[in-house]
């Protein structure tokens, strides 16, 4: 279940990233608030309401059953039969009554069977027939009593039907579940959440035994098995030199290779009759390769210089990138932030980059003019493998709003000179003058706590020095009003 949820989640995110880069970079947050303990009280409220309505619920259940045509027909049939029994009973011929009743009860059985056959199992039929007989036997009272029993029976039919349904329903639910699980399998495979997205490494992509340009050979003998040795953190790659029965030499270097560490190209050929000539000038059987480029080898038969084979391969040696976006950061809306995907300068241009934000493909990203909110920044760097890192960027609105009036009358509303957003700038300096230019207040670290002091209702002038990079100064007037 968890796995399924996770799979769904990644498929949703993937889909989103493709069509809506801005939306996908927004951190999902619940926009709404609920009162504390709301869900506990909700739980109790629902319980109270539901369990109070219990009688109503049974009635509605009953009327629901009546609404279904199959049951209402069968119930109607039963009512008609019972009425006819009633008529029969009041006939003077009391001797024949018992025989007639048996007949009728059988009929009613049949009628029931016809009507209910699919939906109600034999239990109900037995029950209902028993009840019919019972009614027949004790049917020496007036019509109203008969009606009562009809009601009872209706309920019986209803209840039985209800008991009967779970099995059927369970089955249908099971098949649904199976369908569901199928759909999970059919879904696109999720990306591994590991840091290595794309584990196509050299050893995997190498496929030996490609047909050669001179491959007329009838019987090929593979001299060396192609193996990948991972000793000493060096990957070695064997090249198969194949010898045909017609003594034509045959060499195959396989597919191009990308590796994150130096590799050894090893012919692995013990055939003494061959000489090797590499494009690097080396003549040994195996060579070490530690830089990217095109490498080729010529294998020549010592005794027959015309019998040679040649192949080449592109080797890409690229250390796997170390992607680090650093810790999560918080900036203001007016600030910008440059993030570098990798610190390694040497191979900067050899990698390809992808940023989730706006699908940028440079090695760095310049984040500016962002709206306040939380962003998920993800960088994918591809060398031989793709590696990614994520960080969360919180953008705050650090703008400052200075009011032009406050009312220090002690009513708890707007009693202080509160500069909104000043919390982001500790150690901001505030000086206030009155109309005569006399300083009435000064604070080197204003905490939104000036209540006007002993000063009367009037206009005052302030100078606010904000402790940001530029030491911005804001000037203006503030009116004290409503002071008694």
């Amino acid at each position: 279940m968890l796995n399924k949820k996770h799979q769904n989640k990644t498929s949703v995110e993937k889909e989103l990233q493709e069509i809506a880069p801005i939306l996908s970079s927004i951190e999902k947050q619940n926009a709404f608030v609920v009162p504390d303990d709301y869900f506990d009280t909700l739980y109790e409220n629902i319980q109270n309401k539901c369990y109070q309505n219990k009688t109503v619920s049974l009635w509605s259940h009953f009327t629901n059953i009546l609404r279904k045509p199959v049951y209402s027909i069968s119930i109607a049939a039963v009512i008609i039969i019972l009425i006819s029994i009633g008529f029969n009973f009041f006939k003077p011929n009391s001797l024949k009554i018992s025989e007639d009743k048996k007949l009728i009860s059988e009929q009613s059985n049949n009628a029931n069977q016809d009507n209910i056959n699919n939906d109600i199992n034999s239990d109900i039929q037995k029950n209902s027939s028993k009840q019919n007989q019972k009614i027949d036997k004790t049917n020496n009272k007036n019509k109203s009593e008969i009606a009562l029993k009809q009601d009872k029976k209706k309920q019986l039919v209803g209840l039985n039907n209800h008991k009967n349904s779970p099995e059927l329903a369970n089955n249908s639910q099971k098949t649904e579940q199976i369908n569901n699980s199928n759909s999970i399998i059919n879904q696109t495979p999720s990306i591994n959440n590991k840091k290595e997205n794309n584990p196509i490494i050299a050893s995997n992509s190498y496929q030996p035994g490609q047909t050669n340009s001179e491959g007329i050979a009838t019987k090929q003998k593979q001299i060396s098995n192609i193996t990948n040795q991972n000793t000493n953190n060096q990957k070695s790659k064997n090249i198969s030199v194949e010898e045909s029965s017609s003594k034509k030499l045959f060499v195959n270097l396989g597919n191009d290779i990308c590796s994150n560490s130096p590799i050894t190209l090893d012919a692995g050929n013990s055939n003494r009759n061959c000489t090797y000539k590499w494009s690097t000038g080396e003549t040994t059987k195996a060579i070490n390769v530690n830089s990217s480029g095109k490498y080729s080898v010529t294998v020549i038969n010592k005794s027959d210089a015309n019998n040679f084979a040649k192949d080449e391969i592109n080797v890409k040696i690229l250390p796997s990138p170390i992607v680090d976006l650093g810790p999560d950061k918080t900036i203001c809306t007016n600030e910008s932030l440059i993030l570098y995907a990798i610190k390694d300068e040497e191979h900067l241009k050899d990698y390809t980059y992808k940023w989730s934000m706006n699908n940028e493909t440079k090695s760095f990203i310049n984040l500016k003019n962002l709206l306040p909110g939380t962003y998920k920044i993800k960088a994918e760097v591809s060398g031989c493998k793709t590696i990614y890192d994520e960080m969360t960027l919180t953008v705050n609105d650090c703008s400052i709003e200075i009011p032009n009036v406050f009312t220090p009358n002690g009513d708890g509303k707007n009693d202080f000179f509160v500069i909104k957003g000043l919390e982001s700038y500790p150690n901001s300096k505030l000086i206030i003058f009155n109309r005569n230019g006399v300083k009435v207040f000064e604070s080197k670290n204003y905490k939104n706590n000036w209540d006007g002091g002993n000063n009367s209702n009037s206009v005052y002038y302030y100078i606010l020095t904000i402790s940001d990079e530029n030491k911005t100064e804001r000037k203006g007037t503030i009116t004290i009003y409503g002071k008694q």
Partner: protein
Amino acid sequence: MSEFSDNKILELFRNEDTRNYGFNLLIKKYQKKVYWQARRIVICHDDANDITQNVFIKIWKNLDTFREESLLFSWIYKITNNESLTFLKKKRSFLSVPFEGLENQLSDCLNEESSLDTNSIQYKLQKAILKLPEKQKIVFNMRYYENLTYKEISQILGTSVGALKASYHIAIKKIEKYLKEN
């Protein structure tokens, strides 16, 4: 505590002795889902609260007749959806300017009851969602917030997977456009 499976809950509910216990478990399991689904559609807390209670009363009354042609969770979602939409319809009928008026009302609720700063990108997203037509809004909510598959949504809404994909994509495009412009 691990959640009980729907089957287990239904089984408990069908037994007269454990009926209330089974239903309690059902409330515990689904109340948040129902509430949040309703809240995302009607935005205002009080309305979502009413709807949630109505939904559970409906479930309580009708669980007996639940035929299990669908899964319990999609049945509950379906009820919640219908309740929420009926509610909005009712609310709209009281307004003089039906469409824009309703959007404004919901937007008021968003402003009053949201924890978000009105300048934040998350707030803009909510505004963008508000502007969507109801159907697209519902599909978007289910996919984006609840991570449901198209197949599950299709079971709930009774719409084909293809049509759902289309309306989800249109919804996303609209939101993206709105976010770009603002």
